[in-house]
């Protein structure tokens, strides 16, 4: 019995979030031009400055070229085949509370394990649910406001907290930062806005659940989290999409601002539809995530990436202030024909800044999994420290595992360490498990979970369990 055959069997498991919800939508016809940008802005009743901001981004985007440096392959993207706005019809009048939300929408989220009725929710977790281009509901808003915490769709924040939005939008990821960020800046539809006031420890976990439903639409959400001095917030995002034969585009931007002494913990469980075993369909996930850390602040990114046909994302931290801390913990699992090019950037500008990067890539089937990272130590970053550990686990001989770490050091008192290994689940390890009565499937999932443990322990408790299960499901039928 070859372990490879068992592995192959295990790799072919189904995508559980692949259903389509029967929701009538207002969807803009495919195509992108200034009018589309104006339409989106108008639809949201945005102020003039934001429309101008979007148009500026659109013009920058037009002058940019599609990035070609990532270790991914895909047919040329036609940005005129994508619809840039889709909203459930029932949302047109804007339900005032969760009770008014279309029950079909609520059922969609229930089916995904995200009940939006507050009484049924995981205690201590507030959810903003984004369906295609709009937020359909945010739970626990009132309770959060008591603590001074603002958690609402960004489209609302534009109206209700214009100074905050104006001050921080684009302050971390400028409109022209890169091709996809520029596109997002022009057409972003919704997303979450979070503000934690000075010295406040956010009383519950905040989370946003993204769902793409409509065919031929792109999702371009924008998340902005501002943690004022000495505050703390833990935020989680989850993503799924229906099974569809064509590729769908997701180009999000996430900006984090950690003011002096603040801490932001941002966790992602990304399970967009990955395409089928032959590589047909799936989400193209081109995401820009970046945080700025001021003096004594800390930003920690944790991601578990199992979905998407293509993942292109590099959650980064600009360690601007002295003693700032940046962390990146990542598990990326690719199988079938999935491609991932993911990693992080740690830009050390302040003195005594510290960063830790732990990346675990698991490749199976005919997939390609690349870590790409940058650690930059500026001349001013006295005593900066970075430690990077970057491991790849291969399940099968048809897949690829790659590591591209860029290290740039311009300060002699800084210390940068990078280690990387590549290994497979060895026959000996499997045999030991099997000799102790553990079936191969369970054995592989144990070994893979063990491989990812350093990252899982960074996730909030409930989600660590979820992530482990997700990995198990993704590996079902995949042993090595």
């Amino acid at each position, binding site marked *: 019995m070859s372990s490879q055959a068992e592995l192959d069997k295990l790799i072919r498991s189904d995508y559980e979030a692949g259903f389509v919800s029967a929701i009538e939508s207002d969807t803009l016809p495919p195509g992108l031009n200034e009018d589309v940008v104006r339409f989106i802005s108008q639809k949201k009743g945005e102020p003039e400055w934001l429309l101008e901001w979007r148009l500026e981004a659109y013009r920058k985007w037009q002058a940019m070229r599609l990035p070609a440096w990532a270790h991914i392959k895909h047919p040329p993207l036609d940005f005129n085949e994508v619809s840039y706005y889709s909203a459930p019809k029932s949302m047109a009048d804007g339900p005032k509370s969760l009770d008014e939300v279309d029950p079909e929408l609520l059922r969609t989220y229930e089916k995904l394990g995200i009940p939006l009725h507050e009484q049924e929710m995981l205690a201590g977790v507030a959810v903003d649910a984004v369906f295609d281009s709009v937020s359909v509901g945010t739970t626990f808003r009132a309770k959060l406001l008591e603590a001074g915490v603002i958690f609402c769709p960004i489209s609302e924040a534009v109206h209700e907290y214009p100074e905050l939005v104006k001050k921080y939008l684009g302050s971390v990821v400028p409109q022209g930062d890169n091709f996809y960020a520029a596109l997002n800046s022009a057409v972003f539809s919704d997303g979450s806005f979070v503000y934690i006031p000075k010295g406040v420890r956010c009383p519950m976990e905040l989370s946003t659940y993204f769902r793409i439903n409509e065919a031929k639409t792109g999702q371009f959400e924008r998340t902005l989290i501002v943690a004022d001095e000495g505050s703390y917030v833990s935020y989680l995002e989850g993503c799924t999409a229906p099974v569809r034969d064509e590729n769908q585009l997701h180009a999000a931007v996430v900006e984090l601002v950690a003011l002096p002494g603040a801490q932001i913990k941002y966790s992602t469980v990304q399970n967009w539809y990955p395409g089928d075993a032959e590589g047909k369909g799936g989400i193209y996930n081109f995401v820009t995530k970046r945080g700025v850390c001021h003096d004594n602040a800390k930003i920690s990114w944790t991601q578990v990436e199992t979905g998407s046909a293509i993942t292109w994302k590099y959650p980064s931290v600009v360690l601007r202030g002295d003693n700032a801390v940046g962390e990146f913990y990542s598990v990326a699992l690719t199988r079938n024909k999935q491609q991932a090019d993911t990693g992080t950037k740690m830009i050390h500008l302040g003195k005594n800044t510290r960063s830790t990067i732990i990346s675990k890539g698991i490749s199976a089937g005919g997939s390609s999994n690349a870590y790409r990272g940058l650690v930059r130590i500026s001349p001013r970053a006295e005593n900066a420290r970075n430690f990077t550990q970057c491991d790849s686990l291969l399940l099968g001989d048809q897949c690829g595992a790659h590591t591209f770490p860029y290290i740039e050091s311009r300060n002699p008192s800084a210390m940068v360490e990078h280690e990387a290994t590549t290994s497979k689940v060895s026959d000996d390890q499997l045999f030991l498990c099997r000799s*102790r*009565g553990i079936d191969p499937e369970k054995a592989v999932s144990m070994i893979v979970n*063990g491989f990812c443990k350093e990252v899982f322990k960074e996730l909030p408790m409930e989600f660590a369990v979820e992530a482990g299960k997700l990995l198990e499901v993704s590996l079902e039928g995949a042993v090595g």
Partner: protein
Amino acid sequence: MLDIRNLRATVAGEEILKGLNLSVKPGEVHAIMGPNGSGKSTLTNVLSGRDGYAITGGEALFEGRDLAELEPEERAHAGLFLAFQYPVEIPGVSNLEFLKASLEATRKAQGKEPWDAVTLLRHARETCKQVDLDPQFLKRGVNEGFSGGEKKRNEIMQMLLLQPKLALLDETDSGLDIDALQVVARGVNSLRSPERAIVLVTHYQRLLDYIVPDYVHVLANGRILKSGGKELALELEQRGYGWLTGEEEASA
């Protein structure tokens, strides 16, 4: 319990076992001795079902079931246990987690009630003490960074928790100092009972001072050349293997 009849096996196309016969009954302790390259490890690997070892003739029956038909985990569920000569490391998977998975699957297959977490932990801790391992080892990765002696004791601990019907110990004594050897022997002896059998595969006689076998077999060139009582081991210790294999000069 274990009936090996005219067993032939190849590794990478080369015949290593050339018609081996062995019969083990419940309650018995057998020692299989032999020079390097005689086929000792091949025998244990074939019995436990490792990839790359092909049975080309004869059969090995465990309680009447043909072992060749069983997957490694099914052999474990049936009550067969192999203590490895070189236990592998599994980074990130804690010993406890590993034991839990192993015991859950095995007890389920055997129709026993699963242990809850508290019971498991209690048993695991007690067994740790029994083999002189700090219970802290339960939290560490399977064999990760263990010394040679610790790995061997870890094997014995697993054996004691799984309570197999037949334990195969592959050179479990090699690389152990005298204290560790006694700990291992104590563990093995505690498993001796009228329902269980133990097969010790060893190169040295000294293990047999602590685990006294009922039968000793000499394996050479893929066959059992001679069988006898525990006194045969002493004779081997004094005279080497050469007088049996007819290679007086070459024996070490």
